[in-house]
């Protein structure tokens, strides 16, 4: 992995890359992994050599999510390397027509901004029934009926079915997007900051609904978010990602009770505590690294308060911590476990 990264960084043409490891949700029987993303590298080439819209975390995970959906625009994005294993198949290697059957049907996605995610000139019902019709190969009338059912599920009155997106509020639009995503009862739902663009009052409503639907539809969900409140509300397992790398992962309980990586600790420090009267919240010093020029060692090292010399030079291995599946990638914990190397392998496969 390290070699590969250096190689791409040293290549002459301008590029940025996202390397991310991501493992998600178990299948219904819980025996094997539904999705496994390994060493995924996506490059973005632009005319001027500048990569636009780089926004740290959001960028990296949104990119990964889009890569899973096979939606990276080419150009400017190119798959460089890595695998996305879904149900034992490498999604990078399947043909576009096979992919069409997976998108929307097996894996679907909820986008960040509901204001722009819906086609403004198409009645919402058509936008929902379209995906049903497309995947279930049923008549337009049946698809419409199913779409109306979906509207009821997301608690939008069916009599508003033929209205256009601009006639709905942001929260309602996001619920319509959720209805589109869940219309074909997918195995995996990727939610990319689904509540960021919404009002706080609406956020709770939408999250509540997502959690409920996830359980009812028996769907696995990957939630990409900046908000620990959302994590606490919806997730079972948590991975903390920084500059495209998973720094810490574990069950929700492990991460919340026992954050180990300095970055995770910093993130929790930034959450106001209701029981204490603090003047200033904790702030992680410095800025996100430039994705075109990632630090050689631990990506968080330049901003880390407990960084040592080794942190700047060498990438840390994965160390297993007490607790169920709790792993961290930090020099602070290297050697605390004799099986660090083995854990590394295990962690990667998960």
């Amino acid at each position, binding site marked *: 992995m390290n070699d590969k990264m250096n190689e791409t960084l040293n290549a002459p043409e301008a590029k940025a890359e996202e390397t991310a490891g991501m493992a998600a949700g178990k299948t219904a029987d819980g025996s094997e992994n539904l999705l496994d993303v390994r060493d995924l590298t996506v490059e973005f080439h632009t005319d001027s050599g500048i990569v636009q819209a780089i926004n740290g975390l959001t960028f990296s995970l949104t990119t990964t999510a889009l890569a899973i959906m096979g939606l990276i625009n080419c150009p400017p994005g190119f798959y460089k390397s890595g695998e996305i294993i879904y149900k034992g198949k490498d999604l990078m290697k399947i043909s576009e027509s096979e992919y069409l059957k997976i998108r929307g049907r097996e894996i679907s996605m909820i986008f960040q901004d509901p204001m722009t995610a819906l*086609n403004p000139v198409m009645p919402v019902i058509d936008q929902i029934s*379209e995906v049903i019709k497309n995947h279930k190969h049923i008549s337009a009338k049946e698809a419409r009926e199913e779409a109306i059912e979906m509207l009821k599920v997301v608690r939008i009155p069916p009599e508003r079915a033929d209205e256009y997106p601009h006639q709905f509020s942001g929260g309602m639009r996001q619920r319509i997007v959720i209805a589109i995503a869940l219309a074909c009862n997918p195995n995996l739902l990727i939610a990319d900051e689904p509540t960021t663009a919404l009002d706080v009052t609406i956020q709770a409503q939408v999250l509540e609904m997502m959690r409920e639907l996830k359980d009812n539809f028996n769907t696995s969900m990957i939630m990409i978010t900046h908000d620990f409140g959302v994590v606490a509300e919806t997730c079972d397992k948590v991975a903390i990602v920084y500059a495209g790398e998973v720094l810490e992962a574990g069950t929700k309980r492990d991460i919340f009770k026992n954050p180990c990586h300095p970055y995770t600790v910093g993130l929790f420090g930034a959450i106001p505590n209701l029981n204490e009267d603090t003047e200033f919240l904790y702030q992680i010093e410095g800025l996100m690294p430039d994705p075109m020029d990632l630090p050689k060692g631990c990506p968080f090292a330049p901003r880390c308060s407990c960084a040592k010399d080794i942190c700047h030079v060498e990438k840390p291995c994965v160390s297993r911590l007490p607790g169920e599946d709790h792993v961290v990638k930090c020099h602070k914990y290297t050697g605390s476990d004799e099986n660090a190397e083995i854990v590394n392998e295990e962690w990667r496969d998960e």
Partner: protein
Amino acid sequence: MGRYILKRLLMVIPILIGVTLFIFLTLSLTPGDPAKLAMGNDATEEQLQAFREQNGLDKSLPVQYLTYMGKAITGDFGKSFITRQTVTSMIGARIGNTLFLSFTSIAFTIIVSLIMGVTMAVKQNSLYDNTMRVVTIILTSMPQFWLAIMMILLFAVKLRWLPSSGLGTFKQAIIPIICCACSGITMCTRTTRASMLEVINQDYIRTARAKGLRSNDIIWRHALKNALLPMITVYGRMVASCFNGSVVIESIFGINGIGTMMMNALRQKDIPAIMGGIIISACVITVVNLLTDLAYAFVDPRIRSHYRRATGKKKTVRNTPKEGAVTA
């Protein structure tokens, strides 16, 4: 909606009054005596006087204008000073050619530019796209009349494949229609491509792709309708420019249409014929503008609901969608 259309149609009336008044005043106040031009240089003063009396040119300007307008309302546009035919019959005999030329080239333009614009946007930066971009730039920059001359030179003079004038037969119509459509095609292709590219990068296209739709469905069902919005203004403007272009094209190919009629009437200061021609053109342009606005409402539900609200109220908002679209 019905009320809106009615309101817009009523707005045509002051515009027509303004146009006729403007043209009438220009005709009357510029040098050149229509009587002399009609009767020839060797006409006697009595003959000229008789001509003036016969055609009401001896009366004061307001009286002349009001008499003309009074008759025009009943559909009587007067008789030509030169040919002595009624203007209505003169226009009737010629408008067929002009409309045929304009509408075939408009249809041609819309079809060709849609297909080219969309395919170019989909295959952005490919060899096809780049070649066509160069071609459209060159063709945009070629003035219509020069293109016409060059096509005559090539196809009629050198290759002898097509005749160099007229509009009657299919072979005769080819060069005029291509020349008339050419500037429209290049303009529309360029804007369709730009508008398509803008739309393709929108979030809702990503949503559509995430649904697992085939890319053809996405382009023709989702993207095209959105891309058409800015195109409507361009199409509206193109109809006007086609009408413009047909004046030049008619004069080059010797086609007997409104354009040639106007050119001849202007040279001889044939006031009724000029007024008739201008009124017809202004009507066409105004109706096209109205259709453009309605087409917006047809394609864009946001504007449709805006109209519903606006017609409910007494006064329309200052930034009507039409103006917003034109300045955009």
